[in-house]
């Protein structure tokens, strides 16, 4: 819901910090090719002061546009729109690298890269950070109501608890083919990157059965508010959204199911057609600072890519101390990162509308 509104607004350019008084900065000293940075990011994905602080500190102007899906972002890039920094997810970065659409990073201009946390999911796609610098990372799991769903039960049943008829009509599923099929494939013990027709068909039947027997509600961003209110007992949720839910409603808990789940990262990249790569490097470096990264994580609830921030947030007395959703599990072998496969994605999309349409 919020994302939808963000997209409606997103088509209108959001020029923040117009007429900043300190607009004397870098450009005039010839450091950057211009003093405007064009940033293309997810809606609701930045700390409150991230942009204005960066503008003040460097005397530049940032133009932000928002997207609500990697595919939408990709379409705009293909249409030739030029941005200086974008923040896509791993599988989309994989595709962009294949397309030669990204610029190689000059790591000497990003000294803060040493702040990066170790072992992030992004290392799957770009192990040496040649093109990418992680922005946020997270997982997909289940938010459940501790009072109605026993912890042992959900640990035992994993994703299959979504088909436990005790919770009929009390389930939120995430309305996206990628995440729903991930849940189904994992519940069946398959890889979420499978191309095996038989496995996909089984997953389709799994979802259809869930649809026909459990009366699930398919939601996207409204899941956050609704679970804060405790509307349902179980919900498939992104970890950052879950962090916010758990923060507001002490009855809620979060679990990354035993069958393994999707772990992902969204990283900053510089498109090959960037008009201001110098400033883009400066921005990436800035996001990696402790203050900027803390602000982002504090507002949005996703796990920071900055090790120091992660430590601070999860330490005793930290903002997300004892919040199970904030820090995704690492090193669990059944967790996977999505691979880019446009053909498969189309097929899943086709099956997904059929799942939802069946009554």
């Amino acid at each position, binding site marked *: 819901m919020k994302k939808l509104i963000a997209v409606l607004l997103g088509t209108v350019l959001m020029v923040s910090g117009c007429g900043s008084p300190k607009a004397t900065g870098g450009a005039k000293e010839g450091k950057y090719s211009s003093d405007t940075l064009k940033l293309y990011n997810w809606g609701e994905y930045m700390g409150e002061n991230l942009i204005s602080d960066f503008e003040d500190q460097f005397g530049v102007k940032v133009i932000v546009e928002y997207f609500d899906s990697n595919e939408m972002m990709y379409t705009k890039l293909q249409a030739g729109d030029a941005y200086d920094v974008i923040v896509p997810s791993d599988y989309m970065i994989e595709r962009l690298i294949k397309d030669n659409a990204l610029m190689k990073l000059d790591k000497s201009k990003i000294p803060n890269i040493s702040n990066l946390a170790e072992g992030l999911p992004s290392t799957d796609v770009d192990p040496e950070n040649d093109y990418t610098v992680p922005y946020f990372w997270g997982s997909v799991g289940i938010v459940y109501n501790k009072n109605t769903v026993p912890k042992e039960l959900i640990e035992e049943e994993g994703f299959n608890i979504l088909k436990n008829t005790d919770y009929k009509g009390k389930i939120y599923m995430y309305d996206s083919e990628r995440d729903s099929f991930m849940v189904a494939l994992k519940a069946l013990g398959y890889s979420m990157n499978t191309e095996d027709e038989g496995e996909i068909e089984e997953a389709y039947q799994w979802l259809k059965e869930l649809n026909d027997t459990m009366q*699930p509600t398919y939601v996207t961003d409204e899941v956050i508010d609704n679970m804060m209110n405790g509307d349902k007992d179980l919900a498939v949720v992104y970890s950052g959204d879950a962090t916010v839910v758990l923060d507001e409603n002490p009855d809620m808990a979060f679990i990354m199911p035993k069958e393994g789940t999707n772990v992902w990262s969204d990283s900053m990249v510089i498109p090959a057609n960037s008009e201001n790569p110098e400033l883009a490097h400066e921005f990436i470096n800035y996001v990696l600072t402790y203050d900027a990264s803390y602000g982002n994580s504090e507002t949005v609830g996703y796990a920071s890519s900055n090790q120091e921030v992660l430590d601070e947030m999860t330490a005793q007395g930290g903002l997300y101390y004892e919040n199970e959703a904030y820090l995704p599990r690492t090193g669990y072998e059944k967790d996977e990162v999505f691979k880019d496969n446009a053909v498969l994605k189309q097929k899943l999309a086709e099956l997904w*509308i059929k799942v939802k349409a069946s009554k």
Partner: protein
Amino acid sequence: MKQFRNMAYPYVVWIAIMIVLPMLLIVMYAFTKKGNDVTTFRFTLENFTYFFSDPIFIDVLERSLVIAVLTTVICILLGYPVAYIIANANPKAKTMLVLLITLPMWINMLVRTYAWMGILQDDGVINGILGYFGIAPIKMLHTSFAVVLGMVYNFIPFMILQIYTSLTKMDKSLLDAANDLGANKLQRFLKVTLPLSLPGVISGITLVFLPAVSSFFIPKLLGGGQYVLIGNVIESQFLTSGNWNFGSAISLIMAIIIMLSMYIAKRVDKDTSAKTGGAK
């Protein structure tokens, strides 16, 4: 006269580019499939057999038609009396009332539908008022009720205006004649007013049924993610699964169904005007 006719050419060109060409593209997409590297398209009926062989799609189609028919019927039942009242109001009030009917249409449909979400949701306006009287919140958003309500709300002005126009064009002396011949009020309405206003009702049906059967954002916003109508299936073919061929095929099937129903409506219209002696 001839030079005036020439002035129509820009419009003919406009129609060709903006209406005929897209229609042809849809037909072309519907009967083709993405080919291999050598041929970009190959002719096939696969898109249609896929649609008709899967009971899910037939179910969705049926659901969409039921919702659209229901919407149209409610629009007639509510719209006819309103149109009748406006048509018989004094001239000053008439202008005002017509203005009031059209006023909401000045605001974008999407915005107005969003407003309904705020009104209907569990902690929305209606449930807030009910709460004052100690009534537990009623689930309205994400139900068929909300979808039909949204459609009736959005499309009823088209119905009212059509009926109103045909009622005002009616020759009032016919009523006096009926009166002289001894018809009472009810008889006058049933034998004179109603048949003469039928063309308005028919074109009202066209204008309501058409958008109702293909609407995708009203079910999406008011029905929720699990409320899938045929418009949503078409939308997903174009936007998420990228299967333009199948999307076009469904659009074409819808176009044929709509054309058939229009044809039937026209026939009914002709028959009734023939029966009333073609009073024009």
